[in-house]
């Protein structure tokens, strides 16, 4: 049986433990700033003008800037076609047939698919692909023997995201 003399001591000891155990955690910071996590796609909320779209397309395909006179002529051509989607498709295809266009080899696309996907996203959409996008692209390219870099580039250049910045 426990002696009566120990009871006050144990009560005090329990109170101390209870007090220490319920104390608030010290405010420790590690020098990191709060970061809001969001998609890479979310920031492109502005529509490119026709000038911007044509100029950027030329730069992406040829690696050179388009001359002012040539840009003006292409703009005029665009105005003469009611359906701008058709005008865009025709211009992209026209560019693709011209000498000097940067197009990777189809073998390169099929053998170094991951690198091709990364480079294409960076070239056209100015961002890396998400893992989901990369997985889909890898599977799609692998399962479509008719796909060429020209068709992939065309799809990217016609995409809604490419119309925005």
């Amino acid at each position, binding site marked *: 049986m426990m002696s009566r003399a120990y009871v006050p001591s144990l009560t005090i000891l329990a109170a101390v433990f209870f007090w220490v155990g319920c104390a608030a955690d010290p405010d420790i910071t590690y020098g990191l700033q709060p970061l809001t996590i969001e998609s890479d*796609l979310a920031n*492109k*909320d502005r*529509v*490119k*003008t*026709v000038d911007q*779209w044509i100029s950027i397309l030329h730069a992406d395909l040829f690696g050179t800037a388009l001359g002012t006179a040539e840009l003006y*002529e*292409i703009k*005029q*051509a*665009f*105005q*003469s*076609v*009611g*359906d*701008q*989607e*058709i*005008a865009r*498709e*025709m*211009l*992209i*295809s*026209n560019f*693709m*047939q*011209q000498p000097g266009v940067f197009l990777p080899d189809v073998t390169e696309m099929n053998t170094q698919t991951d690198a091709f996907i990364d480079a294409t996203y960076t070239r056209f959409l100015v961002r890396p692909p*998400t893992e989901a*996008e990369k997985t*889909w692209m890898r599977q*799609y390219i692998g399962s*479509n023997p*008719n*796909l*060429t870099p020209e*068709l*992939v580039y*065309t*799809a*990217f250049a*016609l*995409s*809604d*995201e490419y*119309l*925005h910045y």
Partner: protein
Amino acid sequence: MKRRTFLKKSGWATAGAVALPHLLPSGRLFAATGRRTGQHVVMVAFAGGVRLQESYLRRYVDDSQGEPYPGNIMYNLLSGDAPIAKIVYGTGVGGVDPIPALLPTPLENLGTTFAEVSALSAGHFVGMNSLVQGATPGGQGLKQRPLRPTLFEYLRRHGGYKATETWFVGNGIGGSLPLLNHSAHPDYGPTYAGNFFAPTVTFTGQGQSAFSGSQIYHPENELDPMLRMKAFLDQQFAADGSGGFGGGLNNTDEEKEDIKAFMKLMYEKVDSGSVHLPPVTDNGDAATVGFSCEVLSHFKPAFTLVNLGAVDSCHSNFSSYLSALHRADHAVGHLWSHIQSIPEMAGNTTLIVTPECGRNLQPNNILDENDWRSYDHSDENSMRIFSLMAGPNVPQGLTIGGEDNPVGLVTDSMMTVCDILGVMPEVQAAGMVHPGTDSLFNRI
């Protein structure tokens, strides 16, 4: 039948009756209430500002230059003898050789002419808008889409016409012309737009270098996998629905491919010199009509608007104006002749010809090489135009009204198209056309 079964079946029947209009092949909600009386309509905006004096009144230089030589220089459209002297409108040096008539019978004798019609404005911009919208463009800026629906949108929304069934062939890209194929009206807009080309830019100008080298992809092996990839990319991106700096016109994928194939065909025809141009094609109007013929042959549209404008040289050169007027007539004669050569359009196409505005009674101070005075457009005489239509159900050889007895409005031409193609009740119910606008058939 048990009550429960009856209620179940009648419930399904009611739901079906409500849903059925949504399922019409055209994608429209309900069938148009108007009666379609024709298969095809070609409307020529005989534009650029045509004085009634040199056109319907056939006065040549009689009341413009103080020279006593009246006469008809539009003998594909109008009947009457040509001027006997002071010939400057033809071909060759000084224009001394008139272009022979293409039509054995002038359209005036084949159809009904409204000898004097009232324009709504003395200017091109309002005039073109009144032909396209059936109203004046109140509040609409120069580089702005129409605020009220256009003829194309009325036809497509209320008549269920496909995009490639409605075409606007412009004589250029100036004057905000490319903006007139659809409005910014929230209930209409690009979903119901007409297709547009300005052929002298698209096919022989800047468009040739921008588009002619394009390749048509194989529909299954190339196009389909490319479009699937684009669809995936679009799915990943929450677009704002604007369609970018200029979206589509609700052409289906098949229509888009058809248009691209047509464009490629035109570049080939330009290269081989086989575009169906009028015999004399020495100005932009004639070329525009030549490519319009190609549009008609390829698409057989329900409605086509062809815009001319070379007569606007009258601001500074009256001789050039006469020459352009003569060629506009030549081009329209060629257009009508070509329509009759298309099996699907021959005999069931209505042609409507209407200038957008006239020109002044008094000249300005500019003299041309023949010392003839030029004319602007800003006075009451500029509001005097004519209108002519020919085709099935149009009374032949009939003239309505006369000089200083105007009948009808410039906006009637647009309503006549709606009438023929079966959407007039809906357009009238929408209540956005100029007051008093009516079908020309109701003016007869």
